[in-house]
């Protein structure tokens, strides 16, 4: 048997209610921590503000994804129906003025590409799917999907200190404070 040296993930603290979590998040934010997160069974209105989170870059991805969709559809329809094989339907022109006929396709591809960028951009930004998370090592953490509210402050945060961080969490109402160590 060799001694195993486990890496510390950080502190996990439980809070009594959504509003307690919200107020605690504001204090953790004001204490200047960067690498930490809140865990709740359901979305809490305004928690992003209480955590001091910056606006996501995702809307920009989606905007350009949408534009790509519009352009793709237009190019596809215009090239096939005007340039390569001019299609005359009911004596309507086969030139740029047949563009209204392409609008439904342009609309659909804008939506489709935007939808794809939302989904895959989001998965990329939140780094999902993943097989495991260090917090799963905690015995109490599974309650985050049921009836408990948690804050976890990671050890890799520059402000992290084994004693002071624990004190901070307990001073802002944290209970069942636990030092989570990563599993092998």
């Amino acid at each position, binding site marked *: 048997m060799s001694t195993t040296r486990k890496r510390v993930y950080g502190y996990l603290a439980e809070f009594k209610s959504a509003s307690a979590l919200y107020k605690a998040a504001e204090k953790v934010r004001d204490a200047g921590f960067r690498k930490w997160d809140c865990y709740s069974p359901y979305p809490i*209105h*305004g928690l992003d*503000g209480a955590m001091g989170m910056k*606006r996501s870059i995702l*809307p920009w991805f989606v905007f350009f994804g949408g534009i790509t969709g519009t352009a793709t559809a237009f190019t596809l329809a215009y090239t096939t129906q005007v340039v390569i094989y001019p299609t005359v339907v009911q004596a309507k022109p086969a030139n740029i003025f047949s563009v209204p*006929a392409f609008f439904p396709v342009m609309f659909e591809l804008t939506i489709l590409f935007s939808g794809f960028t939302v989904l895959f951009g989001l998965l990329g930004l939140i780094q999902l799917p993943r097989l495991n998370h260090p917090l799963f090592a905690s015995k109490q953490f599974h309650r985050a999907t049921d009836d408990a509210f948690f804050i976890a402050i990671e050890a890799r945060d520059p402000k992290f200190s084994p004693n002071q961080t624990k004190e901070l969490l307990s001073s802002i109402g944290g209970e069942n404070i636990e030092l989570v160590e990563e599993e092998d």
Partner: protein
Amino acid sequence: MGHHHVTSADIAINGDHLDPSKVSKVKTAAMVIAAIGTLVSIYLLFVGSEKTRGTYAYSWLFAFYFFLTLSIGGCFWTLLHNVSNSGWGTSVRRTFENLGSTYPWMFLFGIPLLFPQVQQYLYEWMNIHREAHGSVKEHLHHADHLLYNKYWFMNLPFWYARVIFWGVGLSLVIIGLRKLSTAQDTDPNPGTARLFKARFHSTYTLIIFALTITFTGFDFMMGLDYKWFSTMWGVYLFSGSALNSMAVIILVCAWLKSQGHLKHVTTGEHFHIMGKLLFAFTVFWAYISFSQFFLIWYAGITEETSYFLIRNTGNWNTAMIFLVFGHFVFPFVILLQAWLKKNPKALSIMAAYTLVMHVLDHYLISIPERGISLGNIKPGVFGEIQPAIPGAFWGDILAFVTIGSAFIFFLLRAIGQHSLYPNRDPRILESANLSN
């Protein structure tokens, strides 16, 4: 973040009232312009040379219906807010009601359209009906079979009955709802009774609203060319109406806020929601107006295409293409930004811009018909059928300024009458602490 939580201590117990001296100059000026303009307009509509009588009838119709859509939209937002049991907008709801309350007044500007002297230049179907000696139906049977088939809907007694109903019906609705709301402001025991009452009465009266926006559009606008019809006409006018009344609401709220009113009860969050509605209806307008064009363009049926044929002739075509970009593409891209919608000033600029586009939209709805119809009715007076009658443009501006001044007057009058927000509404705190 962590902004001040609004409590009942922040709510003005006797309401937040506009200082009358602040707007008295603007109000007086608007009233004087409207009064003089109305007198001049009556002269132009009934006494002036036949050429001005004919062209000015269209100017009047354009201005009348433009401002009517804004008032109808005010009724719509009031009804929708009540019926959807909303809490977010309680602190701006009074502005919805104030805008809606201009409806009875704005409808009065449609009175000239009830006179045959004015109708003869606008509605050719009425001329054909009036040619009849004896039975109208019998006359139509020989004169115009299309009108014979449409007789059950397009006949003069029913037309007058409908128009009176549109004027009276929605007026009673909005007057009643506004009274219910403002009575709460001074009630020592406000309670929730009025809230539930407003919600209940907004359900079936929403039908009156829907009929009004749809069929005023049919009776005043679609009737300009009795051969033409579009099944999307009502919803098309509704989309512009809801969009631009929201623009007016945003402008009014931003102005009140800049004057130090609506303090504590409105924040960037309210403007964010109103901005989102502005954005949503920009998209809805585009969706509906394109659908209308698309169905007509694709099918290519003679009776339906006339509308777009007229508007794709000459300079009207440039304006129509500009509308696609100016009324949809540009505001769509700009309004995507969240920060802009939370900023009352930036959002006001977009709201004002949207209103300018609404003017263009309604100009293109009513005015291109003028050169065609008048050339058809009396080529000797108005010239042969042509895209536009030279010089008639000045009448459009006069009518617009006249009715616009009246609109501003009645809106300011309504704003000054009561508290600027329902200060004793049970949902006022919920609304004040809005976060979205």
